[in-house]
C-alpha cells in the first residue's frame, strides 16, 4: 500500500499509449484501454452530430411557424437526433468507454476476458455507424427513434431499412460488450477480490451488461421484422396485411425501456465512485446500492407497457404495468438517499467530478420524480406524447446519464491520459452545463402540461415564450459541452502531470501508474481490503502538505 503510493512518477515510463506506435497498432489493438479510446473518439463524433441536430430542432422551434426547415426535414432531424443519441452515443457511452477502460483494472486483470471480441465489438459499432451516416447522406429517416408501425413499414418514404440495419449491427456491438463485462467480472477478479469488495461501478456495469445481453436481441429481432415487413410485405405489424401494430410497440419497448437503464445505471455507478472519493468515506449502505442495481435490472424488464397506456392496451394490463413502474422507482430512490447519506460526516471537497455528481443527484431526482407523474395512469393520459415526456427523459438521459459520463470522464481523465485537465475550466463547464440544461428542459415540463405535443414542427403561438427559453438554454448547453472537449485536448499536451492517484482514490485502478502499462499492473494485485477503504488512504491535501 504505502509502497504503491510512493512510486515515483515518470512520464517517460512505458505505458499503453507509448508502447507501440502507428495506425495499425491502434486499429488492430486488443488492449481494452486503446479500444476504450477508439470508442471515445467515435462516440464523441456521433455526440456532436446528434447535438447539432438538436440545435437545429431548437432553432426551428424558436418561432411557432415552421420557417427554418421543411416539415419533412424537421421530422428527419428529430428522428436522427434520437437514433444517434440513443444507439450511437448513450448506450455505448459509459459501458464502452469507461467500462472498457476501467473494469479490467478495477478487478485487477490484464484485460477483458475476451479481448478480440472487444475489438470486434468496436468494428461492429463502426460498421453500424457508417451505415447510419450513409442513410443520413442518402436523405435520412423520418420514423422517430421509435420506428412505430405501420408508419415505418408501410408509409414512410425514407431510408428505414438502412437505418434499421445500422442499429441492428450496432446492437451486436452492445451485446458483445455486455458479454465481455459479465465474463470478466465472473472470471477475472484478482485473488481476494470477492463480490462484496467490488467497486459499486463494477456492480452497476454488471447489471447494465445483463440488460444488454438479454434485451438487445429482442430489439434486433424487432428491427428484422420491420425490415421484412417493409421489404417483403410480410404481415406482422400492419393491420392491412393482417398484422398487429401494437405487437411492434410491445417488442420495441421490451428492449427500449430496459435500455433507459443501460443508459442510467452506468452513471449511477460513476456517481457511486465519485461521492465516496470526494467525501473520503465508504459509500453509505454499500450492499443496498449494489443490490438496487440488480433490482433495477430485473424490475426494468417488467415495466415496458407503461409507454403504451394510451396505445390501446386493456385497462387491466395498464393497471399492472403502472404498479410495477412504481416498484422500479424504489431502488432508484434508495440510491439517491444513500449517496446523500454518504456525505454525512465526510470530508468533502468540490473538485469538478464532485460538481458533476451533485448535478447528477439534482437532475436525476427531478427526472425520477417526474417519472412518478407519468407512471400515474390518470396523469399519463394527459402528459404522455407531450413535451412533459421529452423533459422527463432528457432529465434522466442527459441530466442523469450525460452528467455521470462527464463526471466520470473528469474523474478518470488523469488515469486515462496521465494529465490533469484545468480545474477552473472544469468547474466553469460543469456550472454552464447545469444552468444550460435546466434552462433548456425545465420549460418543457410546463409546455407538456399545457398540452404541446412532441414532434411538432409548428405550434400554436401561446407556446412560444417557453420554447424561446428552451432554445436559449440549448445554446448555453452547447457551450458547456464544447468546453470539456477543448480543454481535454489541450490537457493532453499542456496539462499538469497527474501522478498515479491525484484524488487519493480507493480502487485498484489507482494503484497502477497513469497512464497504466499495457497489462495494467506490474504484478498481480492481491486484495486484502474492503472497497472504499478511505480511512487508510490519505487525502491529496495531506500528501501535498
Amino acid at each position, binding site marked *: 500500500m504505502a509502497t504503491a503510493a510512493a512510486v515515483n512518477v515518470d512520464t517517460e515510463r512505458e505505458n499503453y499509449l507509448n508502447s507501440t506506435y502507428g495506425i495499425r497498432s491502434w486499429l488492430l489493438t486488443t488492449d481494452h484501454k486503446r479500444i476504450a479510446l477508439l470508442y471515445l473518439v467515435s462516440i464523441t463524433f456521433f455526440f456532436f452530430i446528434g447535438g447539432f441536430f438538436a440545435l437545429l430542432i431548437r432553432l426551428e422551434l424558436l418561432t411557432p411557424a415552421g420557417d427554418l426547415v421543411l*416539415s419533412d426535414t424537421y421530422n428527419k432531424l428529430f428522428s436522427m437526433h434520437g437514433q444517434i443519441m440513443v444507439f450511437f452515443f448513450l448506450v455505448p457511452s459509459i459501458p464502452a468507454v469507461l467500462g472498457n477502460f476501467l473494469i479490467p483494472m478495477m478487478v485487477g486483470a490484464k484485460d477483458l476476458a475476451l479481448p478480440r471480441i472487444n475489438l470486434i465489438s468496436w468494428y461492429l459499432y463502426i460498421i453500424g455507424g457508417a451505415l447510419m451516416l450513409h442513410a443520413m447522406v442518402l436523405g435520412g429517416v423520418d420514423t422517430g427513434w421509435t420506428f412505430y408501425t405501420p408508419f415505418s413499414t408501410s408509409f414512410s418514404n425514407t431510408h428505414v431499412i438502412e437505418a434499421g440495419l445500422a442499429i441492428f449491427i450496432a446492437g451486436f456491438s452492445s451485446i458483445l460488450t455486455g458479454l465481455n463485462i459479465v465474463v470478466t467480472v465472473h472470471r477475472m477478479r484478482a485473488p481476494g477480490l470477492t463480490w462484496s469488495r467490488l467497486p459499486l461501478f463494477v456492480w452497476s456495469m454488471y447489471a447494465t451488461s445483463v440488460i444488454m445481453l438479454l434485451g438487445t436481441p429482442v430489439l434486433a429481432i424487432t428491427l428484422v421484422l420491420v425490415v421484412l415487413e417493409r421489404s417483403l410485405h410480410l404481415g406482422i405489424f400492419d393491420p392491412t396485411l393482417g398484422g398487429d401494430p401494437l405487437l411492434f410497440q410491445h417488442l420495441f419497448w421490451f428492449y427500449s425501456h430496459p435500455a433507459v437503464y443501460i443508459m442510467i445505471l452506468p452513471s449511477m455507478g460513476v456517481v457511486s465512485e465519485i461521492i465516496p472519493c470526494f467525501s*473520503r468515506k465508504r459509500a453509505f449502505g454499500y450492499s443496498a446500492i449494489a443490490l438496487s442495481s440488480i433490482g433495477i435490472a430485473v424490475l426494468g424488464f417488467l415495466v415496458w407497457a407503461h409507454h403504451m397506456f394510451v396505445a*390501446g392496451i386493456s385497462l387491466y394490463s395498464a393497471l399492472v404495468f403502472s404498479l410495477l413502474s412504481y416498484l422500479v422507482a424504489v431502488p432508484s430512490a434508495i440510491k439517491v438517499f444513500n449517496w446523500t447519506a454518504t456525505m454525512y460526516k465526510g470530508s468533502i471537497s468540490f473538485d469538478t467530478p464532485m460538481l458533476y455528481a451533485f448535478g447528477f443527484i439534482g437532475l436525476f431526482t*427531478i427526472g425520477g420524480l*417526474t417519472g412518478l407523474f407519468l407512471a400515474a395512469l390518470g396523469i399519463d393520459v394527459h402528459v404522455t406524447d407531450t413535451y412533459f415526456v421529452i423533459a422527463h427523459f432528457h432529465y434522466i438521459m442527459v441530466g442523469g446519464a450525460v452528467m455521470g459520463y462527464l463526471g466520470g470522464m473528469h474523474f478518470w481523465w488523469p488515469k486515462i491520459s496521465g494529465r490533469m485537465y484545468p480545474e477552473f475550466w472544469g468547474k466553469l463547464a460543469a456550472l454552464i452545463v447545469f444552468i444550460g440544461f435546466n434552462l433548456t428542459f425545465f420549460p418543457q415540463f410546463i409546455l407538456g402540461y399545457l398540452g404541446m405535443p412532441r414532434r411538432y414542427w409548428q405550434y400554436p403561438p401561446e407556446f412560444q415564450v417557453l420554447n424561446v427559453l428552451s432554445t436559449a438554454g440549448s445554446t448555453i448547453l452547447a457551450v458547456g459541452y464544447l468546453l470539456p472537449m477543448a480543454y481535454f485536448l489541450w490537457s493532453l499536451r499542456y496539462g499538469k502531470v497527474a501522478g498515479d492517484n491525484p484524488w487519493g482514490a480507493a480502487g485498484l485502478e489507482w494503484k497502477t501508474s497513469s497512464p497504466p502499462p499495457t497489462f495494467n499492473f506490474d504484478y498481480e494485485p492481491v486484495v486484502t481490503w474492503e472497497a472504499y477503504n478511505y480511512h487508510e488512504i490519505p487525502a491529496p491535501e495531506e500528501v501535498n502538505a
Partner: protein
Amino acid sequence: MAGTVDALFIFLTLLSVVMTVAIFATVLFFATKYRRRAGVEAEQIEGSTILELAWSIIPMGIFIVIFVWGAVIFFEERTPPMASTEVYVVAKQWMWKLEHAEGPREINALHVPVGRDIKLIMTSQDVIHDFFVPAFRMKQDVVPGRYTTEWFRATKTGTYHLFCAEYCGTSHSGMIGDIVVMEPAAYDAWLAGGGATGTLAQNGSALFQQLGCPTCHRADGQGRGPNLVGIFGKPVQLEDGRTVIADENYIRESILAPAAKVVSGYKPIMPVFQGLVSEEQLSTLVAYVKSLSQAPSGAAGSSLTTAASSSSAMQNP
C-alpha cells in the same frame, strides 16, 4: 375530468418540490458542514439497516397511494357513461373526419353541446394517430384495424385545441382542429343546419340492404347468418367454444374478416368485406347494428326497412 387530473398533478408537484428541496438542502447542508478542513478526518459509517428500510418502505407507501389515485382517475377516464352521445372518428394522414350519430359530418372540427357525455369511437385509415384535447386532459391513440374509444364531458363553452399526439408523418403538426363546445340550444340549431342526409344508423341501414346482408342475417333467426337484433353488448358463444362480447370491435371484425370469430351453430360462409367498405361506411354499419339493440322507440330505429323493423317487433325476450 380536468379537475380530478389536476388535483393529482398538483399533489405530485407539491410532493416533488418538497422532495427536491429536501434533497438539495441536505446535499448543500452536508457539503457546507462537512467541507474539507485540515486535520478533520471523515467518520467512517457502514450504513444503517433501519434507515435503509425506512427509505425503502416509506417511498413504497407513498408510491402505492399515487398508484391507486392515478388508477381511480384512469378507470373513470376509460369508462364512458352508458348514455353517451356517440361520435365516430376516422383519422387519416393528415385529417380528422368526424361523424355524428345524428348525421352531420365534420372535418378537423367537432361541435358538441356543453354538459353532455360524448363518446368517440375512433379508427384510422392508415397509421397510428392520437386524438388529444389538452383542455379535457384526455388522449387516446387512434389505431388502424380496430376501434379505440375515449369520452369527455365539456363543462364550459368555448373553442379548444384538438391535436394529433402520435407522430404520423409529414404534416403531423398540421393535423389539428377545434373542439367547439356550444350551449345546447345553439348546438341543436347547428345540428339542424348541418344538411345531413339521415342519421348514421339510417345510412347504415341503407348500406346493409344494398350489400345484401338481410339475405342471411334474417330477423326471424331462420337465416344462414345469425340474427343481429339485440346482440350488441351481449356475450356471443363462438363455434370454437369461446365467448366474446359483441362490442364495436367484434362487429367490425365480423364484417371485415367474418371467419375470425364464427358464431356457434353457423358456418363460415360470409364473404370478406375487407377492402370493400370504407372506414366511414363501416361506422354506419356498426351504428346500424347497434341501433338494432336499442329499444324499439329509439330514434335511430324509427325508419328502418321492413326486415329490420319486423325484427324489432319480434324481439321478445
